[in-house]
């Protein structure tokens, strides 16, 4: 097989996986630590894309717009936590799903009023628009490597933060046993707001990174949230490590499926049948992966050891 093509496709898969990780990590943190189902998590992804697109137009610099947009999305996260999520902690998941679904509708409608129905294209600076040739002859858009690099940096930062800081220790304590943490004097309200803001900022960052590839558009949050839920289920709900591995796995399965499934099917069936079947199967490859993992390990790949929520 052509190694350059194989390398290219693996990098493409990793890049998709990294974007999924950024969205799924916030979702799994909020779900795992706060025991809160936030369907509106995809909305931060959309808002990140729109806000950075607008700021990029105002400031004329995309990297600057990302730096400015991150705290804004985090603030929106804090606001929605205070207004929508906090009254619903400890309530049934159904109530949380209903409320956050309503939040999606509200945010979508507001976004439509502010930005209109057309998407917003984002222009990259010239130094990001070039291409990089890897050893082996694979030529890749530089920007896709930027996505992978920044995603890996964020993953490393998150790991260090959760495992090597006092705040991360409190987060882990609250995740393991919320009541005990509270009894020991941890200000869980502040902690939860911080986790929520962090999750929102991570999803927003994913949106900011994807906007120059596609564009900022309404409904992009809905497109990502389902697959992000699949990722955290595969990885084990509440586990950052699980979200990371599962996101990369999902990205690779999806990309490699799109790349080679038709060739694979052609070995077993007529070219016409393969041409029709391959897109159908590759569209559901991530869901097939989830079904397989759930059948073998219903708790996901890396379930957190304790999830005491004192209920």
């Amino acid at each position, binding site marked *: 097989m*052509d190694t*350059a*093509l194989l390398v*290219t*496709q693996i990098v*493409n*898969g990793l*890049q*998709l996986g990294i974007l999924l990780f950024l969205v799924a990590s916030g979702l799994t943190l909020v779900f795992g630590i706060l025991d809160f189902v936030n369907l509106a998590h995809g909305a931060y992804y959309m808002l990140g894309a729109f806000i950075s697109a607008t700021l990029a*137009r105002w400031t004329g610099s995309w990297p600057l717009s990302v730096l400015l947009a991150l705290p804004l999305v985090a603030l929106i996260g804090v606001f929605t936590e205070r207004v929508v999520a906090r009254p619903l902690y400890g309530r049934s998941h159904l109530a949380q799903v209903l409320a956050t679904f309503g939040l999606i509708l509200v945010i979508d409608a507001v976004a439509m009023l502010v930005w209109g*129905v*057309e*998407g*917003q*294209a*984002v*222009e*990259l600076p010239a130094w990001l*628009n070039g*291409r990089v040739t890897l050893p082996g002859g694979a*030529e890749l*858009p530089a*920007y*896709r490597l930027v996505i992978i690099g920044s995603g890996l940096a964020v993953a490393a930062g998150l790991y260090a933060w959760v495992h090597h800081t006092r705040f991360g220790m409190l987060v882990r304590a609250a995740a393991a046993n919320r009541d005990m943490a509270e009894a020991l004097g941890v200000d869980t309200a502040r902690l939860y707001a911080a986790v929520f803001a962090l999750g929102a900022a991570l999803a927003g960052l994913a949106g900011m990174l*994807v906007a*120059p*590839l*596609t*564009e900022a*558009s*309404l*409904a*992009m949050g*809905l*497109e990502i949230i*389902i697959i992000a839920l699949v990722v955290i289920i595969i990885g084990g709900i509440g586990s950052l490590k699980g979200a990371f591995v599962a996101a990369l796995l999902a990205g690779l399965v999806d*990309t*490699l499926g*799109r*790349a080679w499934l*038709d060739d694979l099917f052609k070995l077993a069936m007529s070219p016409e049948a393969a*041409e029709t079947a*391959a*897109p*159908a199967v*590759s*569209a559901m490859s991530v869901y097939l992966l989830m079904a397989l993992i759930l059948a073998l390990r219903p708790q996901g790949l890396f379930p957190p050891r304790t999830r005491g929520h004192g209920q």
Partner: protein
Amino acid sequence: MIRKLLAATLALGVSTSAAIAAEVKIGFVTTLTTPAAVIGRDMVDAAKLAVKHMNGKMAGLDVKLIVEDDGFRPDVGRQKTVKLVKQDKVDFLTGYIWSHVLLASRKPALDAGKFLISANAGPSPLAGKLCHENFFSASWQNDQVPMAMGEVLNQLGVKTLYIIAPNYAAGKNIVAGVTRTFKGKVLGKDFTRWGKDAQLDFSAELAKAKASGAEALFAFYPGKAGGAFIKQYAQAGLEKAMKLFTVFTVDAISLPKFQKAGLKVVLGSRSTHFWSPDLDNPANRKFVADFRKEYGRYPSFYAAQAYDAINLIRAGVEGAKGDLKNADAIRAAMKKADFGSVRGRFTYGNNHFPIQNFYLREVVEDPEDNWTSRIVKTVYRNHQDPYAKECPLK
């Protein structure tokens, strides 16, 4: 007492039905949510402009436009069609961007004896075996535009081609169309996920296309996917290795966005179509000028079709002298296609799809620095779709 009440009710019923008869009700099913809403907005704007140009009247009857959103989904589109037929009791149904939505909505509309006019989608079944006396197209059959593109590729001497298109009814038709006329070799084809969670990252497909070594790349991505596709094509550095040819992808909806994003790679890019804003005929000059004055942007081909669909309905209503019960007269008048179409004079085939010209267009900058399309040459004159012979209508 009861008899009096009954009489009063009856009288009321008669008077309301008389009131209904004094207007022409047009159900307009299009997409107003999801990112594809930009297409729906362009079509509704054009339909409103058409109604305004006729002073809100067809053969002396008031025109009532009832717009519904299909949410980019065939099931919802069908539901809205049923609602328009049963609840609003419309006389005509039009709009319909998407082939799968139109195919799902066809039966409830035609079974109720309504006229169904596609203002965009042209799926092959409706041109062939499923053609119907009350169905008309104000656009084209899906295969025709890419067939013209295949012809252009032959004329340019392109020998090898790679194809990427979305996986749905129209995507299949478009690929069938270009491969029907293209005489060179197709080195590979990819169909990508489409609909509400459409795939927007084409890295895997573009890498395959590049590795195939084909001379040219053919793509079909309407709406926001088109912008994403062209951007990633440029980012992958393919413009030197393989030239891009598209249909329904670079249009008046995507061009302002490309221009804002400084995507110079689309300038000079070529696509085929049945219409262009610079097509020189009185109806089109008026349409384009008034649309730009009213909405401050160029109309897209979707808008042109919606404008034509409303004018086609008007031709039918006027041919029947406002008698909406006289379906035969309406049909006969519509079939003449004598309504000053923005595409110029055309005729209808036996399957009620237009027999019309197709042009090669290129993207240029107009004197006011807007990016728009201009006709380069005529590819087909009076072209009929290849499915007409399968249609039993005469």
